[in-house]
């Protein structure tokens, strides 16, 4: 540790620290403007000048400390030089602070008041009227170049943190400004509206629109995706007015994406459900909670057993999910409980369970930083899991090898060393082809396989059919690229696999997952830092909904309902008899409802009428059901089918926990009172149960539910709300002094034998292949600006950034069909048709089309095939044969 003398007092500095850092850490202020602790020093503003004995004046943000260095921060020479720098900055800055949104929070004001200016000189030079036009194009923030001091913090943020380079300096001399490519309004650039530059800009040049200063802040977790970014909710009155990232979180280190930072408008939306509603003569009428709950309790009493089905919410907390499955199992006496994971990552849970014995991702998000090779497949990460996406971009820019495989030319292709554009549904062939290359070239990890794995021979035998010629034909990826990707993945260790729904949402989703699990074992990339397999879970708490036993075959912690000992444990704890028959999975529930076998539904926080495949089938089933209860925060497409709607509290209105994609259980905290008459979901479920005469539902706070979970679930045994303060804990956490488990399978796998299990695999084509009548393959995915449907469409700015559906078509296909960009088209599958407009783009390969599913106006999922993966029962969202016509 070098020691320096600042103004005569001795200061211990960190190794490699700059003089500025050392001084600030020691509580000595040196004015600065272009320095930001998250960014590389740039030395632009020249305000941080100090005098170093023997060296003269230096910029303290760039000069590193040396042992014994003597630094003086306030000599007359320093003060004079700083004052000149400051005056030059101020003369190019619009001087009407009172009308600036940054007034009082502005760094320029701070340095100016510290340094002071020469009024006389300044008066003559100062800018009186704006010289540059404002850029108001982004719905969430404003760019005012007249208040810009050209410190370059925004430029470096977009480059170093966000990794996309949307802005930079342009022009020169007095005309110098920060511009996008072509000096276009920022919405027309590749800017992702993350707002990272806005929070770092020291002046009023970049400010959030409609900013209102919060009166207090409450720590919570982002309610959108499974990354689980830690946030502070800024509250004023009973309103959430601002969100900022939590710098101390290991998950996001302060970063947020556009949804997390700006997408909070749904919380206080006037469209929130405020009163319980009961459908009478086809119209919803407001009723009291007593009326609604009594009605639900008396109706549900008539549907006990397997004629009842509960759909739990991947949006709700762990505690609430625990209660929903407890209610279904203990009160309704059925295992018919499932959640939306069935539509996305059930194959992950099934596949990783078979291979490794635990259905969760193996490594923490922060391990991306240390990986030498990152293989991303079936994940449009920068769009669907943006904060993980930026981490991947940063890793690639730092030198990690990036391999990206996706049927679409996704944004990550721009940063990748090898890009594979495989045909939708051909992943097993691609991955087994890679495995074959690795095995044939002797790049596999023999020792790891021998000591830690089983069933290797059978796996090797199944490689036989994956001749590269065959693989090339099936996948449409040139052989050379497959060899290149395989060699890089096998040799640049540690290698980390990242995947998402492009792998799982297939009629052979679990096999795709097994193929990835094989690949990681083959190269010894499991149980080590920065290696492993990382499934990117979709919703904020989809991991938790599964962990909590909202799946038909398991109690919390994946304890099987078939296991007698487990069942007896729960029977004893809950004081009732429990069914040993695994329940229906999500799609099956609706298939059975159509047959009249399931007659009552309890649907919590899931808009399944628009997110399930073959949506029409689901609509019919809901219409046929005799009693449907929907618990929601907003009027959704699904809620319209309900007999009773119960208004739930949003994540900002209650305490609880969410579990992110790296198995980290994190606290959310009540920041505002529930809107209107809404109530926390845990309270609602308990009230229904109690009114049905059940015991074991008397909780006064969610922390008591967590205590019960810990008592009954070995992998949660050490958890409690008190311990979860801070950054949370990654399960398994088996005792109160257990620190949690960031990396799984370090010493042994969690399978019954303790060995990693290789699976021989065969290539199976998707359930539906293109033919003359339906010649194109439709694959679906997300947009950066939306999550599913109901929440983000209540956020005006998000809707402005992505207002409507488009079907992406390759120019070749489009011209064959006589379709031009922007034309209205009809998209037809074997199950239905929707209308939308065309976007003609090279980003999809010929023969392939792409749509999102975010718009009620264009219910894409009408088209999608409900063919199920036989192991995980997940439908094939990613491959649908379609025909497109001009409309």
């Amino acid at each position, binding site marked *: 540790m070098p020691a320096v003398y600042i103004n005569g007092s001795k200061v211990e500095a960190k190794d490699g620290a700059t003089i500025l850092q050392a001084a600030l850490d020691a509580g000595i202020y040196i004015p600065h403007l272009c320095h930001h602790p998250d960014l590389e020093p740039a030395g632009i503003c020249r305000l941080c000048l100090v005098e170093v004995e023997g060296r003269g004046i230096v910029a303290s943000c760039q000069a590193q400390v040396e042992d014994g260095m003597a630094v003086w921060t306030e000599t007359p020479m320093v003060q004079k030089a700083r004052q000149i720098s400051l005056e030059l900055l101020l003369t190019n800055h619009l001087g009407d602070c009172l009308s600036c949104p940054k007034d009082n929070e502005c760094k320029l004001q701070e340095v100016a008041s510290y340094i002071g200016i020469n009024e006389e000189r300044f008066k003559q030079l100062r800018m009186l009227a704006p010289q540059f036009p404002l850029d108001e194009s982004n719905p969430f923030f404003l760019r005012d170049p007249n208040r810009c001091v050209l410190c370059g913090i925004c430029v470096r943020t977009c*480059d170093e943190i966000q990794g*996309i*380079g949307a*802005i*930079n300096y*342009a*022009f020169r001399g007095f005309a110098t400004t920060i511009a996008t*490519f*072509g*000096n276009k309004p920022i919405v027309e650039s590749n800017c992702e509206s993350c707002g990272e530059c806005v929070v770092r800009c020291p002046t009023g040049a970049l400010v959030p629109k409609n900013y209102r200063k919060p009166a207090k802040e409450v720590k919570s977790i982002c309610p959108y995706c499974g990354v689980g970014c830690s946030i502070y909710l800024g509250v004023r009155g009973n309103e959430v007015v601002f969100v900022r990232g939590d710098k101390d979180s290991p998950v996001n280190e302060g970063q947020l994406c556009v949804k997390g930072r700006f997408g909070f408008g749904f919380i206080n939306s006037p469209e929130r459900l405020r009163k319980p509603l009961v459908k009478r003569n086809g119209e919803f009428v407001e009723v009291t909670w007593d009326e609604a709950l009594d009605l639900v309790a008396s109706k549900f009493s008539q549907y006990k057993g397997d004629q009842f089905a509960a759909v739990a919410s991947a949006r709700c907390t762990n505690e609430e999910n625990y209660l929903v499955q407890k209610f279904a199992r203990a009160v309704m006496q059925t295992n018919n409980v499932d959640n939306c994971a069935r539509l996305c990552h059930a194959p992950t849970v099934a596949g990783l369970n078979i291979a490794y014995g635990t259905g969760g991702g193996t490594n923490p998000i922060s391990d991306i930083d240390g990986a030498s090779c990152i293989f991303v497949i079936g994940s449009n990460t920068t769009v669907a899991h943006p904060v993980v996406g930026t981490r991947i971009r940063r890793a690639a820019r730092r030198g990690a090898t990036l391999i990206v495989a996706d049927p679409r030319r996704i944004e990550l292709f721009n940063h990748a060393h090898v890009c594979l554009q495989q045909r939708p549904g051909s992943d097993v062939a691609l991955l087994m082809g890679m495995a074959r290359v690795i095995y044939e070239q002797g790049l596999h990890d023999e020792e790891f396989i021998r000591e830690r794995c089983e069933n290797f021979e059978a796996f090797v035998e199944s490689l036989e059919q994956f001749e590269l010629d065959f693989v090339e034909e099936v996948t449409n990826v040139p052989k050379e690229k497959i060899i290149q990707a395989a060699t890089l993945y096998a040799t640049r260790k540690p290698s980390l696999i990242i995947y998402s729904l492009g792998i799982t949402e297939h009629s052979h989703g679990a096999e795709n997952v097994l193929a990835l699990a094989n690949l990681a074992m083959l190269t010894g990339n499991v149980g080590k830092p920065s290696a492993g397999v990382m499934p990117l879970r979709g919703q904020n708490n989809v991991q938790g909904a599964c962990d909590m036993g909202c799946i038909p075959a398991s109690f919390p912690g994946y304890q099987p309902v078939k296991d007698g000992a487990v069942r007896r444990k729960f029977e004893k704890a809950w004081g009732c008899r429990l069914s040993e028959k695994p329940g229906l999975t999500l799609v099956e529930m609706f298939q059975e409802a159509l047959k009249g076998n399931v007659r009552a539904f309890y649907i919590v926080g899931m808009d399944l009428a628009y997110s399930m495949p073959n949506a029409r089938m689901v609509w019919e089933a809901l219409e046929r059901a005799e009693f449907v209860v929907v618990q929601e925060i907003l009027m959704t497409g699904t809620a319209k089918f309900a007999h009773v709607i119960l208004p739930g509290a949003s994540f900002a209105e209650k305490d609880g926990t969410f579990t992110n994609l790296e198995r980290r259980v994190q606290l959310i905290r009540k920041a505002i009172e529930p809107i209107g008459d809404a109530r926390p979901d845990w309270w609602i479920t308990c009230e229904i149960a109690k009114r049905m005469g059940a015991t074991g539902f008397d909780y006064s706070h969610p922390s008591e539910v967590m205590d019960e979970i810990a008592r009954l679930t070995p992998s949660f045994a050490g958890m409690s709300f008190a311990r979860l303060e801070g950054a949370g804990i990654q399960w398994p956490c088996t005792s109160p002094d257990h620190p949690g488990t960031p990396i799984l399978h370090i010493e042994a796998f969690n399978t019954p034998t303790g060995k990693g299990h290789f699976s021989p695999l065969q290539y199976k084509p998707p359930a539906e292949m293109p033919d003359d009548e339906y010649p194109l393959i439709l694959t679906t995915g997300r947009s950066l600006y939306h999550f599913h449907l109901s929440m983000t469409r209540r956020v005006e700015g998000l809707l402005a950034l992505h207002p409507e559906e488009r079907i992406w078509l390759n120019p070749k296909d489009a011209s064959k069909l006589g379709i031009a960009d922007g034309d209205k088209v009809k998209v037809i599958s074997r199950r239905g048709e929707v209308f939308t407009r065309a976007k003609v783009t090279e980003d999809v390969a010929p023969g392939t089309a792409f749509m999102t599913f975010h718009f009620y106006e264009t219910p894409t999922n009408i088209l999608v095939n409900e063919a199920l993966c036989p192991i995980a029962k997940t439908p094939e969202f990613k491959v649908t044969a379609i025909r497109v016509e001009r409309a």
Partner: protein
Amino acid sequence: MVKEAFDIDALIERHGRERSSLIPLLQEIQSELGYVPKEAIKAVARELDIFEVEVYEVLTFYAQFRLTPRGKHVIKVCLGTACHVMGGQDIFNYVSQVLGVSAGETTKDGTFTLERVACLGCCGMAPVVAIDDQVHGRQTISKVEKLLREHAANDVGKGEHVTKDAK
């Protein structure tokens, strides 16, 4: 006609992929095409693995680079001190209005590029206009109109906008 074709592979072969190749690359593209088209910026950014906006930064910093195609005739209207005093701005405004372009832009048909310059070194003849590096002193609106008409007339069928708008 505006030239747009460039062979990025050949360019990269000659100059390499280093960051330091950026300026020579852009210079060669410009000397080939007379300007640096957007597609070229994208290609260069891709090949050098840098952001498009970084290339844009360099292009806008150096006066030598042009982002729009150069027309058949380049009209430079001087706005240096002397010309400014003698009404250079009026002349500039006039030309700009008649051609329908602003500084640095080229007419759609590719006939004229308008540029604003600061002192052509012949202040004695202010206000000064130079067409294709031939200097014309003591300009008035009617003289400029004539100049434009003459140059447009050399390109048969390409100068309609001049005769149409100018009085």
